[in-house]
């Protein structure tokens, strides 16, 4: 601004301001998304037993730490590098971020993507809680942030094949890319591990109540807060009236879907089980938030409420189905919340997207793209998760010995107890 004033210098400085505004927005929302790590840690710690609390907190801490480094080192390039292998992945390169070009500094984009990658990784720990070897978990979390998440992420967000379809697959903030991927890998992990000792007696599922429901509630409040970074931040811009209007709308749809999810899970659990269950309502919030994530930019406010409501209902049935019928032991409901509702929300975009959605006269093109995106990403997550845990099981071992599981991982694996 020390140059002579001309229209051009002013335009330049206006462009600079726009970039600053976008950068602030992305960084602040990245900080909120980072905080979701604490949210996940407390949801998972609260919904498991006291004897494994140190372990679960540790896993949540380390998957972020490890993920931050490996995503920075290579993962980012796999996700955002130039298409290679026909849009299957980005070209790998070592800590190289100028492969990406956009309206904000590349490191702002990097940190935003890093906290997203870490979210996908951390979802898994909940489903595998209370029985997984610590060192195996470290290896798993390295591989998801390094390879699994970036590659399928590339398909949708890195300009890969899903983004290049005629009607591109629409997953605005990651119902599928982040949550479903995390949730389905969680599923393969939970299956590979088998249920916790005492979880099933024959055909009967036993309750293993979480040790501290307030931690669970704290976690959900933090996650809800974080989602106000997750979804509106994914706009990656705030400058100009179009962006400002968009992020405001996304804020509202996100909030309404979470609220609707809480209400419908409350009502359904009340009707089905005779009492309104807090643990279901808390999961209902998350279900609504996960489901709205794909279409938070395109659906109307009312659409958001409907999507959240559906997600809350489906959540309750998914949890009990997976537990009572499939007998897959997912201590915190990660598979239902992130896997099932992630897929659900993404598909519902095909119905509720204003303009392209079926209910808005947009025909089935979008819906088909959504199904292709969900389906292909699901196959990827399931297949890689399956192989990964198979290999880990055969090599370094997946599950702690019976005695350690019974007495608690905290003391035997870490030599520390959570409460003294």
């Amino acid at each position: 601004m020390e140059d002579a004033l001309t229209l051009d210098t002013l335009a330049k400085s206006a462009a600079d301001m726009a970039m600053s505004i976008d950068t602030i927005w992305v960084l602040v929302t990245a900080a909120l998304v980072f905080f979701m790590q604490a949210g996940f840690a407390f949801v998972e710690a609260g919904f498991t037993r006291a004897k494994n609390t140190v372990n679960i907190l540790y896993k949540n801490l380390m998957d972020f730490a490890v993920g931050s480094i490996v995503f920075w080192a290579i993962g980012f390039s796999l996700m955002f590098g130039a298409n290679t292998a026909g849009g299957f992945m980005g070209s790998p390169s070592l800590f190289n971020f100028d492969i990406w070009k956009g309206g904000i500094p590349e490191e702002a984009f990097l940190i935003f993507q890093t906290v997203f990658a870490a979210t996908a990784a951390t979802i898994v720990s909940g489903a595998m809680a209370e029985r997984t070897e610590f060192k195996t978990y470290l290896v798993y979390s390295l591989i998801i942030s390094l390879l699994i998440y970036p590659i399928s992420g590339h398909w949708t967000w890195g300009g890969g094949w899903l983004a290049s379809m005629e009607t591109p697959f629409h997953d605005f903030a990651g119902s599928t890319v982040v949550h479903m991927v995390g949730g389905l890998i969680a599923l393969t992990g939970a299956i590979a591990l088998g249920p916790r000792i005492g979880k099933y007696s024959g055909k009967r599922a036993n309750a293993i109540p979480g040790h501290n429901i307030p931690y669970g509630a704290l976690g959900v409040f933090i996650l809800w807060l974080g989602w106000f970074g997750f979804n509106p931040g994914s706009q990656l811009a705030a400058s100009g009236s179009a962006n400002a209007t968009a992020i405001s709308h996304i804020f509202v749809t996100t909030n309404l879907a979470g609220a609707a999810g809480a209400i419908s899970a409350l009502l359904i659990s009340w009707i089905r089980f005779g009492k309104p269950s807090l643990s279901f309502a808390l999961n209902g919030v998350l279900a609504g938030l996960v489901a709205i994530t794909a279409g938070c930019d395109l659906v109307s406010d009312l659409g958001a409420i409907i999507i959240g409501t559906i997600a809350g209902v489906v959540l309750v049935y998914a949890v009990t189905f997976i537990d009572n019928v499939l007998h897959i032991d997912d201590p915190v409901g990660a598979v239902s919340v992130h896997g099932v509702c992630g897929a659900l929300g993404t598909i519902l975009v095909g119905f509720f997207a204003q303009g392209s959605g079926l209910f808005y006269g947009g025909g089935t093109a979008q819906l088909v793209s959504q199904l292709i995106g969900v389906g292909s990403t699901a196959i990827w997550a399931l297949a890689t998760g399956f192989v990964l845990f198979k290999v880990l099981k055969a090599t370094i071992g997946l599950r702690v010995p019976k005695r350690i599981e019974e007495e608690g991982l905290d003391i035997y694996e870490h030599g520390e107890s959570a409460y003294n």
Partner: protein
Amino acid sequence: MKKIEAIIRKTKFEEVREALLDAGIEFFSFWDVRGAGQTREGRMYRGVVYDTSIIERTLLSIIVRDKNVEKTVLAIMKAARTGEIGDGKIFISSIDESYRIRTGEFGDESLYIKGKEE
């Protein structure tokens, strides 16, 4: 000397404590226990009902001189009763010896404060 162990509803603790004080019983220890008995409270966790007869109770452990057993039992009985299932139990057993750590007093003497009570 007798040991009186009373398992009462947690919610009745304050009343029992006052009744004991009124009866002149000032010394006792207590802690939280869980009890299996006739009362059942259905709990549910994420859709799985777990039948549990497990109820929070308070256990009072009171060591008294023989002459005080009766009034102690009566005081508890009165204060802890609601008439509904789950009021709890009182058990009495014998104590062979008692010591006050601070003074080394033993026997009955260790159970009351000289001067305060005859």
